[in-house]
């Protein structure tokens, strides 16, 4: 999909008032919190397993160039063709050329966020005149409705059964039903016909294994296996951080991914693909390509502080730990990556100026990092982005922040460093707040503080702490000490 993060506030204002959606997402969050907690709890030592997955991702990202080269060597030896794409345009052009070369008319897809990132579907439909069907049920529904995925793992998670049924009535001629199994059956029949006639399957990559040159794909519906096994040509698209040193690392990550994502010990389908089919084999593609996409990630890798953004394994666990995502939904983020996961990666890929709402509309509550199996320190990252924006950063698209804000903080810092000035400012603030207050609560506030008082009151205690302390020093201290001693004696006797 095309990125549009600048419209965050406008879209957010439309979404944040949808109390039904918020209520529903709260329930979704609660259910998945329980499922994932159970699945992780079943591990013999969850803490250790998480430390391992964090360490694996950290080490992998540290050694990214070497691991990618090793993967390429082994994948080529397995008969795959590896193609490198510097950016979205190059990746799209590469895949279009492959479609033309192999005379492709119909493409089926396995659910893949990376193809959303490069907006591949639109490009291929417009430039190569092919017909593309998303194979994942949720993604297919989203494709038919022409909206962005609501969640990287559950793209249609926000839709109710009526909306889903109607979408399928309108698009695949299904007879209206609200029976989930009937709906799934209808889609299964429809998709089966597409898989059978498809010339090319396009999938993402959950993990590329450097030591074996194979790719690992996990799913629950079978659409990925169809797309990799039935069409003549298979194109797997991966962003360059989706690599693991060896099979043990890859499967530990897949284990943590499944548990953190859907609360499963293992997904229904796990495919390990070692290359195109050999002579005499019945299933598999005749030609297999792996497209490795950079699209700004080398720049992230080059920065030691920001590099941890590449550890993400796309499990989606952080989404349901994010109060902001659960309240505003996916659409305000304006791209395929919403939630905390998107708030970490999108600003670096799209530029800090264009995405500042994404990392500023965050309470820094740390819910995301408390559950991240890849060990990303989200709060630290959002601190970095805010600092980069304030100071300016050419590499990641931050022009120097507002001069007014800078002057404001400079003045504020001067006051903070000067107790007399600080006390005066505090007195001034209390005076202004006092104008709109009664009985220790402020109801109306001026200027930017109006955003507060439009929705809630503000306590304004009768005295500042300093005033209280000065009085307590004079009178209260002696009394309290006597009372404490008497009380101490009383307790000893109990």
């Amino acid at each position, binding site marked *: 999909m095309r990125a549009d993060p600048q419209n965050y506030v406008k879209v*957010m204002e439309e979404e944040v008032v949808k109390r039904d959606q*918020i209520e529903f997402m709260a329930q979704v969050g609660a259910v998945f919190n329980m499922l994932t907690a159970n699945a992780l709890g079943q591990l013999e030592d969850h803490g250790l397993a998480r430390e391992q997955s964090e360490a694996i991702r950290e080490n992998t990202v540290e050694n990214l160039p070497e691991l990618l080269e090793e993967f390429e060597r082994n994948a080529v030896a397995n008969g795959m063709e590896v193609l490198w794409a510097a950016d979205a345009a190059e990746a799209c052009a590469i895949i279009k050329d492959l479609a033309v070369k192999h005379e492709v008319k119909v493409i089926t897809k396995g659910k893949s966020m990376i193809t959303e990132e490069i907006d591949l579907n639109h490009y291929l439909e417009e430039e190569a005149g092919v017909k593309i069907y998303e194979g994942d049920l949720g993604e297919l529904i989203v494709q038919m409705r022409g909206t962005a995925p609501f969640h990287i793992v559950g793209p249609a998670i926000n839709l109710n059964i009526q909306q889903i049924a109607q979408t399928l009535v309108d698009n695949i001629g299904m007879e209206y039903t609200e029976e989930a199994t009937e709906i799934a059956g209808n889609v299964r029949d429809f998709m089966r016909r597409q898989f059978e006639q498809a010339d090319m399957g396009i999938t993402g990559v959950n993990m590329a294994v450097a030591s074996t040159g194979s790719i690992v794909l996990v799913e629950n519906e079978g659409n990925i296996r169809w797309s990799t096994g039935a069409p003549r040509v298979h194109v797997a698209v991966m962003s360059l951080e989706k690599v693991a040193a060896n099979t043990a690392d890859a499967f530990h990550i897949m284990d943590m991914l499944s548990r953190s994502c859907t609360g499963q010990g293992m997904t229904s389908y796990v495919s390990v693909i070692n290359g195109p089919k050999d002579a005499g084999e019945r299933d598999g593609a005749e030609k297999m390509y792996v497209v490795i996409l950079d699209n700004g990630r080398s720049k992230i890798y080059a920065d030691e502080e920001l590099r941890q953004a590449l550890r993400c394994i796309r499990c989606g666990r952080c989404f349901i730990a994010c*109060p*902001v995502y659960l*309240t*505003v939904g996916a659409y305000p983020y304006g791209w395929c990556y919403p939630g905390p996961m998107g708030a970490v990666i999108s600003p670096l890929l799209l530029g800090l100026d264009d995405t500042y709402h994404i990392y*500023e*509309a*965050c*309470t*820094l*509550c*740390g*819910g995301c990092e*408390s559950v991240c199996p890849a060990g990303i320190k989200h709060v*630290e990252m959002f*601190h970095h*982005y*805010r*600092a*980069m924006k*304030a*100071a300016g950063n050419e590499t990641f698209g931050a022009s120097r*922040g507002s001069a007014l804000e800078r002057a404001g*903080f*400079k003045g*504020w*810092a001067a006051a*903070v*460093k000067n*107790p007399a000035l*600080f006390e005066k400012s*505090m007195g001034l603030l*209390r005076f202004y707040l006092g104008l709109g207050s009664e009985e220790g*609560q402020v109801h109306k506030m001026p200027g*930017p*503080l109006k*955003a*507060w008082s439009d*929705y*809630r*009151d*503000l*306590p304004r*205690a*009768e*005295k*500042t*702490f*300093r005033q*209280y*302390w000065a009085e307590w020093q004079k009178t*209260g201290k002696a009394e*309290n*000490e006597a*009372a*404490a001693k*008497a*009380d101490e004696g009383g*307790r000893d006797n109990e």
Partner: protein
Amino acid sequence: MQKVSLFIPCAVDALMGDVGADTVELLSSLGFDLIYHEEQTCCGQPAVSAGHLEAARDIARRFIEIFEDDEIIVSPSGSCVNTVKNDYPRLLAGEGDWQRRAEALGERVWELSQFLVDGAGIEDVNAAFAGKIAYHKSCHILRALGIDEQPLKLLNHVQGAEIAPLNAAEVCCGFGGQFALKYPLISSTLVDIKTENFLKSGADILIVSDPGCLLNIGGYLHRHHPDRQAMHLVSFLARNLKGGVGA
């Protein structure tokens, strides 16, 4: 008597002086000898959160100079403690001696409930309350400092107090400092959800232990549900001491 240096956040000083006063009442009732450096102002968290790191570093160095001779520093704000403990060493990284001083200071700064339970071994402050309360788990106390059981241990020892389960107790109330001013619609929706959960708990008082949450939830309740109340943990304990100190 053990000396305790008070780290009173600027927002408490300016707007919630009563919370600071309750901190004094509670700690002195427990026999601690209190010190308050009057030159203390703000820990700089707003500058850290807004990314104005030069201002934040300036303030951090000043804070360290003020407090670094104290053995025990206690604050009724986990959020501000987190700034000193976790942000200062990061901010001053690479400034050799300053980083070391920040780290050394961080080890002596305590969030109030953590100090009482883990530092001083006090779970029963000798308070009683006849009624139902609920407890909101502030983000920075729970996740940034890893303090979970300590506030509840203190509350569990309040004679007569019934603690009602609170749905989504660990979810953010939507304060977030400048977030509340920049994104008031999201912030007010989050505090509305927090309030709904509190009302459903059936408790009379929602106990919070960070001043930011108190500003937000307390202010929202005062506007929309004036019959219900949010209260800082330290105020709840201090105002319900059996001897009547501070009552």
